[in-house]
């Protein structure tokens, strides 16, 4: 088929397209059904978060951070709060650390559930989406009973939390885990090992290991290529070094390492691991304790700059913060994981069919709010 040359055609995918997961435009150059190059056009959701951040006090940036990656707000809050705390050199109480980890990992499960459901939708499986949202709803209920919000929480603050967990939260979370852990098998039966799904995703859009590292692809997408690397284990922040869990890496069950199926499957494995972490954190959660560290009313980090990175559901979320000693940041740069992951699409989606581009894009699990900022 590839010997027959036809005239090249430019095809616009998006900005309004169900499989672009937001407002993203892909300029595809196609030769018949085969895609020869992919050029993403970004910026439809650009709000210049970094300029806003320069005009707000340090704690005031958190609601903006929430809105960057709206599927993983807790992880964003966590990353930003830790970045500022490292700068200030303060330690937060034990109890705060545990609650933060519980929320960050619940959020990771919720985010991966959306990725799992929408990836199914992308390749034509509608039902898994409903299953994913059934469980995600329970996590959102837990968040709602804690801080009143279901999507944008503003819960993890610099030096602590906005408030303590409500009575009954721990029992309800245990009940959720009890319900959730057996569901993973259901997802695998429904989608992971489904013949049609495997045909669509295995051995499609391979991302070799060194290409992934050079493009700065991180998170589950990097691990799917066989790189055993997770910031939670390899550069432990918060209290991740206290838990017993495994880093999920791609397996060559149906296709090569680094294909779409692996990028999907690593997320399923990670949900399992996150559930393990939540369970251990709940077991060891200190009963008593304040949820605010003793920090000054006005936060003034010393003059200087610091780059801090943490593991977001989509990869390495970095904050490069420059301080001039004042109460507002001089510069905040957010190293967005989804932006770097999307950068690789031209490399891996060229020479595949148009339908495969949809699968490849879906497997990269992008959130446009964070790419455009």
């Amino acid at each position, binding site marked *: 088929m590839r010997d027959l040359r036809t005239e090249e055609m430019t095809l616009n995918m998006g900005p309004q397209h169900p499989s672009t997961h937001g407002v993203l435009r892909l300029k595809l150059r196609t030769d018949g059904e085969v895609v020869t190059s992919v050029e993403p056009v970004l910026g439809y959701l650009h709000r210049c978060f970094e300029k806003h951040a320069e005009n707000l006090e340090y704690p005031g940036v958190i609601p903006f951070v929430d809105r960057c990656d709206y599927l993983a707000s807790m992880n964003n809050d966590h990353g930003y709060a830790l970045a500022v705390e490292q700068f200030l050199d303060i330690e937060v109480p034990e109890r705060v650390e545990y609650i933060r980890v519980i929320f960050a990992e619940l959020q990771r499960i919720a985010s991966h559930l959306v990725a799992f459901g929408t990836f199914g939708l992308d390749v034509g499986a509608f039902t898994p989406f409903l299953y994913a949202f059934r469980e995600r709803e329970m996590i959102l209920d837990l968040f709602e009973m804690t801080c009143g919000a279901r999507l944008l929480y503003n819960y993890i603050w610099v030096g602590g939390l906005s408030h303590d967990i409500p009575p009954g939260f721990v029992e309800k979370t245990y009940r959720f885990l009890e319900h959730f852990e057996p569901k993973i098998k259901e997802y695998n039966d429904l989608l992971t090992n489904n013949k049609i799904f495997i045909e669509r995703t295995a051995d499609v859009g391979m991302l070799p290991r060194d290409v992934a590292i050079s493009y700065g692809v991180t998170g589950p997408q990097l691990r799917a290529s066989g790189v055993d690397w997770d910031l939670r284990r390899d550069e432990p922040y918060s209290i991740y070094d206290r838990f017993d869990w495994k880093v999920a890496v791609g397996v060559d069950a149906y296709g090569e390492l680094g294909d779409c199926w692996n990028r999907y499957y690593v997320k399923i494995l990670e949900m399992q691991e996150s559930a393990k972490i939540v369970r251990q954190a709940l077991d060891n959660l200190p009963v008593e304790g304040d949820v605010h560290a003793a920090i000054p009313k006005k936060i003034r980090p010393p003059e200087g700059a610091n780059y801090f990175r943490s593991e977001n559901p989509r990869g390495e979320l970095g904050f490069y913060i420059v301080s001039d000693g*004042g109460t507002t940041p001089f510069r905040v*740069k957010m190293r967005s994981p989804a932006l770097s992951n999307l950068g690789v699409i031209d490399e891996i989606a060229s020479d595949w069919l148009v339908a495969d581009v949809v699968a490849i894009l879906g497997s990269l699990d992008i959130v446009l709010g964070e790419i455009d900022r």
Partner: protein
Amino acid sequence: MTRADIYTRLADQFGDSIVEFNDESLQRYIRIEPSGWYAIATFLKEDPDFAFDSLMCIAGVDRGPKEDQMEVVYALFSMTHRHKITIKISGPRADFHVPSVESVWRLADWHERETYDMFGIVFDGHRRLKRLLLPEDWEGFPLRKDYQVQDYYHGIRVPKIKPKKLTP
């Protein structure tokens, strides 16, 4: 390797291009001349003792009209040796050119475009240096400290937000 070791070896090799090694700040960094950057970048990536295969982040910083300086900050990491280094390059605000390292680390492709988009820093040798997030016909570079929003864009009024402070 510790950051001091990295500095010593770099200073041996590229003495002329290295301006400063700051070992005191929270995040230690090496400041270099723009002209030597491409050679240093290639060396940092290729040399087996360094093996900086991962570029974590590129950040532009505008020091404001008073200081009349702009900076590009590169955070590098080695997956093999698990060591880190921060490289800083500074230059004048009006006309700041930095060699592009897009061919060394592919991540730099979009991150350099973003830095150009927001600060107007020109990366020489970049194959497609154009705006990444803003429309191509947008005026000015938003993250400069003295940035003024244009009044109209294609006949649409651009909303203005009053900043509390613009220059430090």
